[in-house]
């Protein structure tokens, strides 16, 4: 089963064009959707999660037309929104049980088993009787994951799931996701590059409503081999470097600035080659050095 997104466009009443003809094919497994804040990730996620309608385009999940057969999608969907609240005065167990029923698990005993297993899986078993109002951000997030996992979804949409998690929880969470990737289409939106590089077999980079690059992370990194250069400069030199070079990223380092640039050949003395990583791919795509923006500009320098 694959998720096919074709020419999806979406504009908001205030005139913001959130998505401009987005097309993607998302296969089984983990898929990363990487992009800065406001890139249109959440809009796309909500369209896939049936919460918003596209102005144009089509979305198909296997045989299902996502845009019209909403209920069929919902039956096989797991959705973890970027932000969500909880009813403060109910326990995690009761709430999850309620959601399990809404997801169609009507048999009480079966529901109980599923709920218990999920609570254990997301590590909320010991606090299952506590009111959700008293949960920490991480606990709440894990609760959301449990809800998303109810009913063995074949399409799992997780919108910026690691944003509020501490490092340990993040690791656990990502592990959980990759396990799921074996059984479902998992679409993970994030602005944290590491989430994608560690997990996803495929990814897309999105900015201002456009897909800039669709690739396999490892291959994309490999493709940049030998084209990333680094140099430590004084802050005052930065402006000049930015004028002359295709700067991918800058980083402050003990009062000086570490600059990484994209160039087919050495940009000059003082520059050394750098091992490319996914962050370089990301910034290069955003900066129009590679991917769709680069081809639209008539190819990189």
């Amino acid at each position: 089963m694959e998720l096919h997104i074709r020419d999806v466009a979406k504009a908001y009443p205030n005139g913001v064009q959130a998505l401009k003809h987005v097309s993607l094919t998302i296969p089984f497994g983990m898929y990363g959707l990487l992009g800065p804040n406001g890139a249109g990730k959440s809009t796309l996620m909500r369209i896939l999660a049936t919460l918003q309608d596209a102005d144009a385009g089509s979305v198909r999940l296997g045989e299902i037309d996502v845009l019209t057969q909403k209920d069929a999608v919902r039956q096989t969907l797991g959705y973890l929104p970027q932000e969500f609240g909880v009813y403060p005065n109910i326990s995690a167990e009761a709430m999850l049980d309620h959601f399990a029923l809404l997801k169609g698990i009507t048999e009480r005993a079966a529901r109980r088993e599923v709920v218990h297993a999920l609570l254990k899986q997301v590590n909320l078993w010991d606090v299952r009787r506590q009111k959700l109002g008293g949960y920490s951000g991480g606990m709440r997030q894990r609760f959301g994951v449990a809800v998303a996992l109810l009913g063995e979804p074949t399409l799992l949409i997780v919108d910026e799931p690691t944003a509020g998690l501490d490092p340990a929880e993040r690791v656990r969470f990502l592990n959980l996701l990759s396990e799921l990737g074996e059984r479902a289409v998992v679409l993970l939106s994030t602005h944290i590059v590491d989430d994608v590089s560690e997990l996803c077999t495929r990814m897309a980079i999105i900015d201002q409503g456009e897909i800039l690059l669709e690739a396999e992370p490892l291959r994309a990194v490999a493709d940049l081999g030998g084209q990333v250069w680094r140099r430590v400069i004084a802050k005052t030199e930065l402006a000049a470097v930015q004028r002359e070079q295709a700067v991918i990223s800058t980083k402050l380092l003990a009062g000086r600035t570490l600059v990484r640039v994209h160039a087919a050949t050495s940009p000059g003395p003082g520059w050394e080659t750098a091992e490319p990583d996914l962050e370089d791919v990301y910034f290069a795509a955003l900066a129009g050095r590679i991917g769709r923006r680069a081809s639209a500009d008539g190819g990189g320098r």
Partner: protein
Amino acid sequence: MKLWAIYRFELAYQLRRAFPWVLLAAMFVIGFLLARDGSLSVALHDEFFINSSFAVAKSTVVGSLAWLLFGAAVAGDAGARDIASGMAPLAFTTPVTRWQYLGGRFLAALSINVLAQLTVQLGIIVSVYAPGVDPGMVGPFRAATYLTAFCYIALPNLIVATAVQFAVSVRSGRPMSAYIGSVSLLFLSFILGIFLFQQGRLDLARLFDPIGVQFILSDLSHLWTAYEKRWRMLALEGRLLENRLAWLGVAAAVCAWTYATFRFAHRSGGGWVARWRRRRAASEPAGTDEAAMRAVATTPIVVPRARRQFGVIGQCRQTLAIASASFRAVATSRPGLAMLIGIPLLTVLVVLDQMSLDGVPLIPTTVQVLEELTAPVSAEMSRWVIVPMLLIYFAGELLWRERDAGLSDVTDAMPGSEWVGVLGKFLGLAAVLVAFTTMQLGAAVLAQRILDYSQFEWGLYVIALFGLQLPEYLLFAMLALALHVVVNQKYLGHLVAVAAYVMITLAPVFGLEHNLLIYGAGPFWDYTELRGFGVSLAPWFWFKAYWAAWAVLLAVVARLLWRRSRDDTWRARLALARARRTPATMRVATAAAVAVLGTGGYVFYNTNVLHAYENAEQLTRDAVEYERRYAGFAATPQPVIAATSLRIEIHPETRSAEIRGSYRLVNRTGVAVDTLHVAMARRVETQGLMLRGVDVPASVDAALGHAIIPLSAPLAPGDSAELTFTVRAAARGFRESGADQAILPNGTAFQSAWLPLIGYQRLREVSSASARRQFGLPTRPLIPSLYDEREWVARGRGAMFDATIGTPEDLVAVAPGALRRSWTENGRRYVHFATSAPIGEEYIITAARYAVRRSRAGGVEVRMYHNPARDAHLERMERSVHASIATYTELFGPYPYDHLTVVERPPRGTGMHADPSVISHGEGFPLWQPHERPGSLDLPFAVVAHEMGHEWGVPYAYVEGIPIMSESLAWYYAMQVIRRERGEAQVRRLLTFMRQPHVYPPIRRGEPLLRGLDPYLSYRKGPFALHALSEYAGADRVNLALRRLRERHRQADAPLATTLDLYRELRTAIPDSLHPLLHDLFEVNTFWEFEAERARAEPLGDGRWRVTLEARARKVVADSSGTEREVPLDEWIDVGVFAQAPSGAAERLAPLVLERRRIRSGRQTLVFDVAGKPDLAGIDPRHVLDWVEEEDDSNLVPVTLPPTR
């Protein structure tokens, strides 16, 4: 200044949103409509200007009331937005003080609310000067009219309400809780006000009215004279001032409380229950996260596969799950607890309080209690208005629950139809209502138990509460929910839902009268012990079925527009709605539409095809047309009915009756009658008019009920002729107002109004001056002037009456007259009644499974027909009847008949009515059981004596002062019976009861007694005046005058009596020295005001004391326009000194001395020497002339004794 900055920001923020503007628009429309429709119709009737201070004040009060419910979100948002939106951590950590923060927010909300109320005034002004108003209804423009209404009524109202709304929302952190604040303010003050009012504490009740509806305005309507309603300007004085000050005090206290309890602090959430639970949970040891994590990480967990169901069964379960979650959410919220526990507790108190009438306990039968618990949703003055108000709130809270919690993205992406959400939440509301109804039932039974009553009729309870009352609420719940869904904006949703509710309750104001057009409306059911539900259930059912079908359509709309997407534009919502038109949904919609058409068609067939639909306008038009066509015959000489003979067949099985009647007509005029005019009743068929046994060529106007019969041979003066006719009454189906309940298997009752009358009927004319003007009819007074001598002429002396009535065998029929014969024929039972003397044109015919109690009093046979299940009242009633016959015969002359009938009839209610030789009473009267203890008033005894007094009535003219001639005299008569039978103390208790303000609040101005029409004048002031006269002149003299009055006017050719005749007889009977008093009592509005200021006593030895009383006296005369003028007082007034009454004594006052002394205006000192220890001293201590007797009786003062050595 920061407060100013916060104020400006808040104001700008709110005004950038749609809600305040919608609110302003709504308030404008309300102001406009109130002035147009509300005041206008009243104004036309009462003849005041629609822009008089009175009219504007009225509209302002109602406008305030509407704003209270519409506009709560303004203060709610100002108070709770930061917390609700999660901005609190940012806002609360800025360096502002609580004073600046709360002050700025509060003042901003107040400003918007001030704007909203100003818009009401604007609406009124536009309404007055926009086209479409009769210029005669508009007085001169006076800016003060609007300013006073705004400043004295609206402004204090909105300060109080904004303070309460703000306080509640700041406290709870939820904007919509402000609405609950509004509802509570309204409800508590309403309940408390009514309660205090019924306790006789009108003064306190007025104080408890925060908006001015119940007491301030009803006071104005009641107390201001017609002149004042036109011209008087509302002034901040007296009660209004007290009330306004009191509520501004409350507002200040509420604000202080808000300020004192507010903290810039994180809200941990939940009430004390949640905190307590949290504390308990916290004390339980929990495994450390870290350890658990590692343990789990090493053991992979397999989530079992579970079968999933998305079919109908699955969806049903989901629906139920949402319903139960919704129920829990409501039931555990504060407003939910208030509804499920608080209101039922209040219900207990209400029932306990209502199970007595005028201080006399009522047997709390189930029907009686149910009356307190049930009301149509549309009854805006019912205390159960609170239920729809709460439903609106709960519907909003439930609908917005996911979104408020930020959970809607998760829930919206769950599988399943929108039906699950719609029905789940509706069923949640329904479950709340079921729980509420159950609690109400419990409360009712508890109240009955407390009152020592245990014959619970469980079946009736269940049918009435669950079968009949619950559906009223359910229909409204669906409407509230659907409106919230459609509007999809929380505050606007509340506003729209409240507006819809206002539309329902005040539908006629908006031009909607037919119950097929008013959501949820229909004829209400009715239950009495005699007739059970009668035939009231069928129309109830059909109307409710029709509205239930509409409710299903509303549910379909709710499902189509159910919000389940981030796209909130109408375009997106409609696109979604189109996509949701699944075959199943369309099938439901089609079925509901078919049901709407089917039930609606059936209802329409009944209300408009089987019966003529008679709305107010149609009835007015008919009356106008009747007058136009036939008023010309008003002066045409006509014979009178000298004898009536009826043969009545009652057929309850077909809800029909046939009356074959004959009138013996006598020409008592001096000219020959050549044309007969017969007025026929509406709603029955009058056929077969035959004169002297032959068919007459009548021209019959069936629509207006008038037949003109030219006589072949004119009826010469003194001649008589027989007119025969047949009247058929057959109830079919039901009318828009409900089914005709006249003919029933048990509890049949109908009036003589079904029978034809002779001549043009002036009582059918339109009396309202405005309608007369509108239709171009000549103006005329509401009732002919006292001095209109044409009205004094007697046109007949009543008719001899006899009737034979046939009924099914199990029924006992009752008509006026003695029972001459009864027999059975063809399986039917027949009775024959005949009167021994003529009776009037009004009487009642009843038939039920009666028991009868017979007795004789003098030469009179008394028969009392009653429900066999109720007989506890009979002895008291019989005693009063017998005592009345004896007393009245002796004092006022013979009783005209040898028979007297007392008959019980539906509906409920304690009302009693007297027709010649027949007294009928509602089914509630037997439940009225006075305390049997010394000092208590036996009001039922007095009421029977009063009605018996009517049997000794004087034939009186239809002119001003008519109720003085009937009601005042009957009450004075009753006092004579009570004095003889029960003693003077009981008379004084009756008078004390009558002086209480709460049945008929006193009126100080208006017409004098001679021209009195108002109930206060007829039922209170008239009896007080006659009683005062009898105190001064002696009862014998007054009685003699009344006896002479009656004798004189019962003579064959005597004119009809008026108050002028009464006045003349009284004047003749009393000494000349009392003529000024008589004048003061009857010819002008005189008020005596006495006050005992202080009294002290010094011992004289031998147990004798000298008491010095300082008292003030004042005498005031008020003219009909309301101007009061003090006049010098120089009269003999009761003064006295009283010892302490022994406990348990029948009399409150034990006089040591009680005498009359000459009293003048102003302060004076009175000295008494008494033989006994004085306790109280007073001036007019028994309120013979000063008819204001308040709780702390100012006519009496405790005597200060010297300190004992």
